[in-house]
């Protein structure tokens, strides 16, 4: 164990081992760059430990139990009992397998791993504080640095995550019992994914959202499919209300909310999950010492190679201004930064960033909506295919939702897509690829799609935009 301060040097220092940082580190090492990765907590970052992965694992369990318990029409009679602590342990096993994998992959690619918290000393060095008392610290000098310190959950007045009944998403993902009554503050994607999960696991769920619909940012016909399904699942949604506080009651807690015109409401609960957003982690490592400054919300601005204002210091992932706070964006930015350090002719020049919401049903979107396309100066043409006309969707007993493709009328170039329905998160891949390729509606429509698959609906939406769908009526 090293106590005191020794200085080492590295060509590239990556701070933070989330999907931005570890991917950057591996790619840099693959390109022959001497790379050091510092992480203060756990390999895989928010995504693998407290975000994407554990949430999707719980969703799998909740879906299976709920579906099997509600499939009488298919002749399946079951009354599944979910042992929440077992489900949690299984989920933790998945997380461990993946985070262990990340560590192994880093090592196998030759990345130097350092545990500790990094703070900038100056433009070319950080000091690493090792965890625990008397673990000392070390200085690492670098030629290039990639900041990938990610984000943390936002706390709102009146709700302290230190209090036992107040849950962050991370607490929710660690639950070993299902609360009888759960109030969820925030109807964004994290709030809705967890609301759906806990409703399926048996909780009485109430969602409180300040705006006038769930999933702000999504088109209303997309959100509607999820909202209606949430209603079917018994989720009680209240819009135009902000949570103002909570208090203990004899039996559980009482969550109070306020509307814009000052009306107060109260909801009984056992737990309250606050999921109102995340903010970048740029305030705990003395970025000023490196000559950097974050914007007023804490984000760092970068150029197309992900360089900050200090040319040899890059930023990727949730800390970056303007790109969505998503794991795959972090990874792509990490790759771009790493390859740029290695001298490759790269840029973050993706034409469109896909995104998925793992609600019931799922949402997958990429690129422009019809309105976006109009705004950008295109004359959009739109094609749609409802899943209830898809043979595959009907055979899976999940036929809500649709595939919509947005294209430029004149050229036929695919500009965007919105999918809500079964496997939307997977189906969006083909359309994201189509947009990157500069493909036209005709390209998508005339590619043979396997029968019976949900992907055929992608083809049919393109055909619909061309006025020649087979399985849905053309306008």
């Amino acid at each position, binding site marked *: 164990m090293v106590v005191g301060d020794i200085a080492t040097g590295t060509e590239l220092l990556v701070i933070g081992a989330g999907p931005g940082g570890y991917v950057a580190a591996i790619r840099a090492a693959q*390109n*022959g*760059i001497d790379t050091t990765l510092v992480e203060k907590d756990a390999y895989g970052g928010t995504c693998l430990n407290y975000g994407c992965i554990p949430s999707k694992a719980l969703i799998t369990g909740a879906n299976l139990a709920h579906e099997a318990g509600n499939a009488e029409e298919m002749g399946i009679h079951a009354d599944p009992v979910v042992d929440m602590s077992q489900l949690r342990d299984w989920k933790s096993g998945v997380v461990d397998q993946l985070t262990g994998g990340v560590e192994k992959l880093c090592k196998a690619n030759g990345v130097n791993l350092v545990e500790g918290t990094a703070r900038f000393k100056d433009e070319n060095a950080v000091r690493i504080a090792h965890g625990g008392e008397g673990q000392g610290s070390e200085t690492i000098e670098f030629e290039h640095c990639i900041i990938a310190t990610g984000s943390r959950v936002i706390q709102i007045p009146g709700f302290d995550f230190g209090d036992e009944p107040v849950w962050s998403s991370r607490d929710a993902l660690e639950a070993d019992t299902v609360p009888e009554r759960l109030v969820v503050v925030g109807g964004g994607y994290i709030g809705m994914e967890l609301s759906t999960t806990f409703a399926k696991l048996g909780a009485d769920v109430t969602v409180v959202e300040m705006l006038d619909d769930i999933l702000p940012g999504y088109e209303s016909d997309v959100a509607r499919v999820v909202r209606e399904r949430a209603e079917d699942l018994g989720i009680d949604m209240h819009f135009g209300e902000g949570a103002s506080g909570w208090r203990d009651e004899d039996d559980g807690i009482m969550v109070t909310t306020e509307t814009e015109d000052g009306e107060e409401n109260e909801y009984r609960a056992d737990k309250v999950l606050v999921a109102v957003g995340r903010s970048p982690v740029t305030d705990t490592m003395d970025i000023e010492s490196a000559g950097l400054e974050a914007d007023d919300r804490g984000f760092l601005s970068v150029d197309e*190679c992900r360089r900050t204002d200090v040319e040899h210091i890059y930023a990727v992932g949730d800390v970056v201004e303007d790109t969505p706070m998503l794991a795959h964006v972090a990874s792509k930015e990490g790759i771009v930064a790493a390859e*740029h350090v*290695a*001298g*490759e*002719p*790269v*840029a973050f*020049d993706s*034409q469109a960033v896909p995104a998925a919401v793992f609600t019931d049903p799922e949402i997958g979107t990429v690129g422009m909506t019809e309105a976006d*396309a109009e705004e*950008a*100066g*295109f*004359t959009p043409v739109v094609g749609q295919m409802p899943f209830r006309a898809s043979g595959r969707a009907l055979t899976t007993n999940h036929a809500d939702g649709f595939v919509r493709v947005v294209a*430029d009328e*004149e*050229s*036929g*170039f695919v500009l965007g897509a919105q999918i809500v329905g079964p496997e939307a998160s997977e189906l969006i891949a083909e359309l994201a690829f189509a947009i*990157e*390729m*500069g*493909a*036209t509606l*005709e*390209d998508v429509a*005339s*590619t043979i799609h396997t029968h019976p698959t949900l992907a055929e609906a992608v083809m049919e939406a393109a055909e619909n935009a061309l006025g020649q769908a087979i399985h849905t009526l053309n306008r």
Partner: protein
Amino acid sequence: ADDGSSSGGRVFAPPSVRRLARELGVDLDSVDGSGPSGRVTEGDVRAAAEDDGDGDEPNGPRTVQSNGKSATAKRDEGTSASAAASAESADREQTLAAPATRALAKE
């Protein structure tokens, strides 16, 4: 070919072609795409690079040695390839062309 105005000023080209343009220092906005609706192909970018003359500085990053190979050098072999080689790759481009390209060819 497309004049770009109907396309909101955006250039439509696959990722590999965009990267090649950066490598060869070709400004994609100035390339006339020969694909369907003016999609820019690898051949278009290479032709544009030839037109610009060989001495052009790539607008990409500096060239560094990594794993004993230089990324830019790797690609340079491609640019200085013989006419025969580029003809061959043009052939392949045609046989492996996208559905809309093939439809165009048939019309």
